[in-house]
């Protein structure tokens, strides 16, 4: 696995949806906030949002970088070039995502990035008979090739795939990975939303099931230490067990980062540890 970053393309026109997808509500947050948060959980390097020129974006985590696509409406290769240029030498590979995949799982992102080694330039899932170029991983040093294609006005991703080493991954092959099969058994990570009906269907789905554990004095109340709750965000999970993320309460997600960001997106299988902020000696 190479050092990784993420690019989220937010500059699409959302013409079938009727309103900008990036700002669509997602259970108190927004679609873009959720997707950037999910990919941010899966990569160690920067998360770059590529917007259209002058596009207003919803509020994002402070760590997310935003770059404007210099030319609007020229498709994903243009956005890919802007994102790869912004990453520069800070990572060797990048997961590239669209904005409209609220069921994206960080385990899916990690799986795809893991396959991007020295032997391939692109890892391209093919799920349900379709290539998924906006749920794929790219080596950052493809930037020169992408720029050449743009200069030649060859704007379709297929032109890029013809010129580099692509690992094609079928859905069946991906689900042979036991961890991914457990976290995202139907590979809903690639389910995108094109029309209002898609959005409404997805929005009505139950929140992912996560395990919550309370530590220290937070565990003193008359509730079990370990609870299973459904929550789209960390704030929802806290509320579900009667806690508020404030100056006295922080959380660790899957034993990893410490955070008190209530908008941090959660995904199925997550383990959330709530602890007092003063966790030291």
């Amino acid at each position: 696995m190479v050092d990784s970053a993420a690019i989220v393309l937010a500059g699409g026109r959302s013409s079938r949806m009727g309103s900008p997808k990036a700002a669509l509500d997602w259970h108190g947050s927004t679609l873009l906030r959720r997707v950037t948060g999910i990919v941010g959980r899966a990569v160690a390097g920067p998360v770059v949002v590529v917007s259209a020129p002058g596009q207003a974006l919803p509020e994002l985590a402070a760590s997310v970088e935003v770059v404007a696509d210099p030319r609007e409406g020229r498709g994903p290769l243009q956005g890919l070039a802007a994102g790869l240029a912004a990453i520069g030498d800070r990572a060797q590979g990048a997961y590239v995502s669209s904005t409209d995949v609220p069921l994206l799982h960080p385990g899916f992102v990690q799986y795809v990035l893991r396959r991007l080694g020295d032997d391939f330039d692109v890892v391209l899932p093919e799920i349900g008979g379709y290539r998924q170029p906006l749920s794929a991983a790219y080596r950052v040093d493809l930037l020169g090739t992408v720029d050449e294609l743009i200069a030649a006005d060859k704007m379709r991703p297929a032109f890029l795939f013809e010129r580099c080493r692509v690992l094609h991954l079928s859905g069946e092959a991906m689900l042979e990975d036991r961890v991914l099969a457990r976290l995202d058994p139907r590979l809903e990570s690639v389910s995108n939303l094109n029309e209002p009906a898609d959005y409404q269907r997805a929005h009505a789905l139950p929140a992912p099931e996560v395990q919550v554990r309370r530590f220290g004095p937070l565990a003193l109340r008359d509730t079990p230490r370990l609870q299973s709750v459904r929550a789209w965000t960390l704030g929802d999970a806290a509320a579900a067990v009667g806690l508020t993320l404030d100056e006295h309460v922080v959380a660790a997600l899957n034993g990893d980062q410490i955070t008190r960001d209530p908008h941090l997106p959660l995904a199925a299988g997550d383990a959330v540890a709530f602890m007092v902020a003063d966790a030291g000696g």
Partner: protein
Amino acid sequence: MRRSPPGGYFGKVLIVDLGTGSGRTAPLEESVLRSYIGGAGLGTWLMHRYCPAGIDPLDPRAPLAFVFSPLVGTPLTTSAKFAVVGKSPLTGRLTDALASSHFAIAGKLTGHDAIVIHGACQQPSVLVIDQGEVSLAPAGNLWGSPADHTETTLRERMGPAWRVAAIGPAGERGVRYATISHDGRHAGRGGLGAVMGSKLCKAIAVRGRGKVASADPAGVLAVAKDLRERSFGPATAKYRELGTMSNLLTFNAISTLPTRNFSAARFEGAQALDVGEVSALKQVARSSCASCSIGCEHLVKGPGGKKTRMEYENLFALGPLCGVSDPEAVVAASSLCDELGLDTISTGGTVAWAMECAERGLIDAPWLRFGNGDALLSAIAQIGAREGIGDLLAEGSRAAARTVGDGSEAFAAHVKGLELPGYEPRTLQSMALGLAVNPRGADHNRSGAYEADLSGDHDRLNGGESHVAGAIGTENRAAIMDSLILCKFLRKVFTDPYPEWATLLNLVTGWDVDADELERTAQRIVLAKRMFNLREGWTRAEDWLPDRFLSESLELESGRKATLTADRLDAMISSYYRGRGLEPSGVPQPSTVEELELQALTTDLDK
């Protein structure tokens, strides 16, 4: 004509020559008191003033200072604390060990802001300080006894108004991480108990009948009441309700629990050592230090029904660090450390090093294995007696590894010779920096940088500029709390600490210190410690972590690797030096010396 000392001070230090059993006082100028406050800060100044450069810490001429503070004796919660300051026999650098007890109040009310002892008694003795009168009494059969027995016996003999600080057998035998204890608490880190033992001083008994007034007694009373009420709030809930033992499961969940000599950061036996398990099994009482409203102490029943204080550091060091999950064994080990007068962190760290070496065949001790509670107890007993392998381990992990050689140095988890506390540096990278650069060595009380890592404000696995800022900030705040002195368990009670601390100090002293001055004072104290070490031969190479932390990654539950590279640590240290106004070599820049008014200390460097 000399001015009256400011409120909260007597303006003088008692200097005792144990060789003659005589004492004299020396003035402490107001400018010194305002610049260094008290406790660890004033103790540092006293070491610059009275410690001969380059002296062996166990040489009779090496001074040992018991330093009080302007807040001692006020009704401010947690203020009954004092610092023991000296050159550490474990590190060869400055160390200051704090403790809370009635000794602080009685010691100060002898009429002194500090007591400095030097020289050595002709025979094992008790130093008796009755107000300003100094004398020596033979220790007799107290020599060889545990510190708590010594304290109890002396108070029964001399009367309840007397307060006693004593060493245990480990201090007498020169174990380099021996403690000084009183009221069942220890001035623990750095081996100052061995310094006292080298002077054949079993105990110091003090009786204070003096009085010291605050500049604004009514104002002090009002803020004391407010602080006391705030000390019952959520910022101290953990300490009050569970004590620091509750850190163990939390740290295990976030891969921050040092396990089997730092070879892992999660311990499969952690659940058995949870505060709930230990307390349900053995808890007998909760308690608090003198003048404290938090009450963090959780006493459990040790061997023979003896009350043993359990907190996170002794639980981690004698439990997961040695791979021991049996709570009975861990409590017994802690109780034995108390009885012998041993710092539990350095004891656990040194035994864990020996266990790893034994398992790797580097030392011949087939009985010494991770997870073996009986072996742990046996090793501690041998350390206290300096018998068998204990004589080697009594030197601490750094010196023991140098003796054993054969690559064993790679497994000695120390900085400057001081064994690491219970915070995994690879998963707490602001703390990694704090551990590396602190003058005392690997220490969590002078550098609480873990606070920045656990705040959620930065990626704790990816050390950078924000981690440096976190380390400097917590180090500065610790310098003030350790000099005022207030318990760090209060730290989250202060929402805007420097102005609030300045208010407390001004009400007691009558000064007009503001937040900016106090922050400069913090920087001055931190650098004064560094300058003492410079005088004693410190080089930049000492501000570093053992190679294990820079060459072995840890895998978190999330699957992410926690890696701390030498390049990253070096970059953070360089940034820390810039932030502190130091040269790349770690020496203070002339402009920093001038700005912080440290010129008087630079002359020490030439000694």
